[in-house]
């Protein structure tokens, strides 16, 4: 426990004395020694409530951010090869991109999957694909992040089944499931079931991982897609944290004590091109989360109050014109995320406005992070911009505007953030605000109030740029369909039918946690599409009312 009578500086010094330090010279290039943080002794310190300056006292002095590069394409075998490359190249964690059919809970042989199998990520149909995806990777050591939402509970079940078959018990598995369904309705639009039924699956996975998987992050509450869909920085922050409050209220309603699950919630923010606004956004996120968790939800464990996040540079900031300029954009955005105290980071590749990245482009993106980590010395001092008049004022203003949005959402829900977010979705409020902001930005670009280099200014050279692009052929689609047919031919069909029938029965009773039966279905080699359509038979389907 923290010593209440000590000054903030004394408490900080105690926390630092108890922290492990990595082996590095914490000086400038010319040898000037650097303190681990700067500021008045009675001021804010990292690792102390409300955590504006960082969740941990030592920040990057103990451990730099994790360079977590998102990858996935083609079949599971292809992606397994890319994963091993990432580990060899010094990437600290894996991040799995699934293809669109998988994201929407469809099998690779579904007619709607045509043209999409293995295109924007890896195709996973059954446990056999998960086995190939993580083959010869020690899942007790490497942490994995899986970007999956509507079928998140299904994919988590397959991950557990696959790891346990390989001899790693679920209790040792570390990683993150995105599992953030609310932002799907608001922004990313990869939804399957209606919101309330989807939230039941989120509740089940939060409760299950809280009980059985102490190293697992059950939900990665994601603003990234909200921003990519066109929101402002403040909207990204406010909608994301509001969604976080909704998941907290969901788990509290299910009877979980706040400190039993809140430490395993994490966040995922965009790192966009407006440098200081992004840094202010991250600082405000930590402060707001800490205050709400403590004051409104009664958390007492500091870990419940610490907003930890992953960041990814902004895909929408990349241009198809003169794509090499994107390396500079990405470096600036990555720097904002680091100065803002991110726990992990993905840097986009220069060619991603055109196609999935080539291996070389992805390597340059990783190298960009390594330059920041190892050459610039910016990781020596926590929250290096804390105390700047500008950054502190901007942090306060971002927080103030976010609180205005929370008040509106609470109003929708008659005081409940859970109801407020769901009603806001059902009434297209979030979707409308995001579309308005996207259009406003487009108009600003169009009438020259905003400049994008190579697009509406400085276009000399646009004609001469040709960089090699990754081409994905339809052969992957054929191969994946064949793999699925093989698995269907080999498995015990009676066992599959039995477990799916049991799942359908359990789905009708909202009191039942579906995770154990989902794991049994994975072990029987039931496919993602079969499991999701079984659940869909009970839950129904979500249809968005098209609005411009």
């Amino acid at each position, binding site marked *: 426990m923290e010593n209440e009578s000590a000054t903030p500086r004394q408490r900080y010094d105690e926390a630092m004395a108890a922290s492990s330090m990595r082996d590095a010279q914490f000086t400038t290039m010319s040898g000037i020694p650097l303190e681990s943080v700067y500021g008045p002794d009675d001021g804010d310190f990292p690792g102390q409530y409300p955590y504006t300056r960082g969740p941990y006292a030592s920040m990057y002095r103990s451990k730099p951010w994790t360079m977590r590069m998102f990858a996935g394409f083609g079949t599971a075998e292809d992606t397994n090869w890319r994963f091993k490359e990432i580990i060899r190249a010094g990437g600290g964690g894996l991040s799995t991109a699934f293809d669109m059919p998988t994201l929407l809970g469809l099998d690779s042989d579904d007619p*709607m999957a045509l*043209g999409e199998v293995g295109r*924007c990520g890896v195709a996973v149909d059954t446990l056999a694909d998960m086995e190939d995806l993580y083959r010869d990777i020690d899942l007790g050591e490497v942490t994995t992040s899986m970007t999956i939402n509507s079928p998140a509970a299904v994919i988590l079940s397959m991950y557990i089944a696959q790891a346990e078959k390989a001899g790693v018990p679920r209790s040792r598995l570390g990683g993150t499931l995105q599992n953030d369904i609310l932002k799907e309705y608001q922004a990313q639009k990869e939804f399957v079931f209606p919101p309330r039924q989807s939230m039941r699956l989120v509740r089940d996975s939060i409760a299950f991982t809280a009980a059985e998987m102490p190293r697992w992050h059950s939900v990665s509450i994601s603003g990234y897609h909200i921003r990519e869909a066109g929101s402002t920085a403040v909207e990204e922050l406010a909608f994301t944290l509001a969604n976080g409050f909704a998941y907290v209220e969901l788990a509290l309603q299910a009877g979980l004590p706040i400190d039993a699950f809140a430490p395993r919630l994490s966040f995922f923010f965009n790192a966009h091109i407006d440098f200081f606004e992004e840094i202010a956004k991250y600082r405000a996120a930590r402060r707001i989360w800490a205050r709400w968790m403590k004051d409104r939800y009664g958390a007492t464990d500091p870990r419940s109050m610490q907003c930890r996040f992953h960041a990814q540079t902004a895909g929408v900031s990349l*241009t198809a014109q003169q794509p090499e300029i994107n390396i500079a954009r990405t470096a600036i955005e990555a720097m904002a995320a680091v100065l803002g105290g991110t726990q992990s980071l993905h840097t986009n590749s220069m060619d991603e406005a055109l196609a999935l990245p080539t291996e070389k482009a992805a390597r340059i993106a990783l190298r960009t992070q390594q330059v920041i980590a190892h050459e610039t010395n910016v990781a020596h001092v926590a929250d290096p911009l804390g105390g700047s008049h500008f950054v502190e004022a901007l942090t306060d203003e971002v927080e103030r505007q976010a609180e205005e949005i929370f008040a509106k959402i609470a109003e929708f829900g008659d005081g409940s953030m859970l109801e407020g977010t769901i009603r806001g979705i059902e009434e297209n409020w979030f979707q409308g605000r995001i579309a308005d902001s*996207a259009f406003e930005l*487009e108009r600003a670009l169009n009438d020259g109030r905003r400049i994008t280099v190579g697009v509406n200014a400085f276009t000399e050279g646009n004609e001469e740029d040709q960089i090699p692009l990754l081409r994905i052929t339809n052969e992957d689609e054929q191969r994946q369909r064949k793999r699925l047919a093989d698995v269907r031919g080999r498995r015990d069909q009676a066992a599959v039918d039995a477990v799916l029938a049991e799942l359908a029965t359990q789905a009708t009773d909202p009191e039942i946690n579906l995770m154990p039966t989902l794991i049994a279905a994975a072990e029987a080699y039931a496919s993602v599409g079969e499991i999701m359509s079984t659940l869909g038979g009970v839950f129904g389907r979500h249809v968005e009312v*098209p609005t*411009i």
Partner: protein
Amino acid sequence: MSGERILVAKVGLDGHDRGVKVVARILRDAGFEVVYTGLFQTPETVAAAAVDEDVDAIGLSMLSGAHMTLAPLVVQAVRARGVDIPVIVGGTVPDHDLQELSDAGVAAVLTPGATAEKIVAEVRRVLDGAPMTS
């Protein structure tokens, strides 16, 4: 020249709808009547909607890379209904795919960075029956 009807559509599984909504508003502000299909359409549902709504052109918004599979199917589905409604593709289309899309009957392709003026001009050009440039 106002009052022409454009169907904007998202076909396939790609849920990225930022572009389609922005383009829909640009076209609406330029005086077109714009109908949006919503997400997760098939080539068949797009062609059927285009005929039902009696539109003058179809705009397909594609981000995921599935344009080479899906855009030609939309053209075929439209032609199979015995109508000649031009199909315009907008989105992340690499240069090396342009010729094949043109050969498949796509009337125009608008790529990232196209200005509002360019989008409106291309749609007008297609409606006037001019051949594909670029």
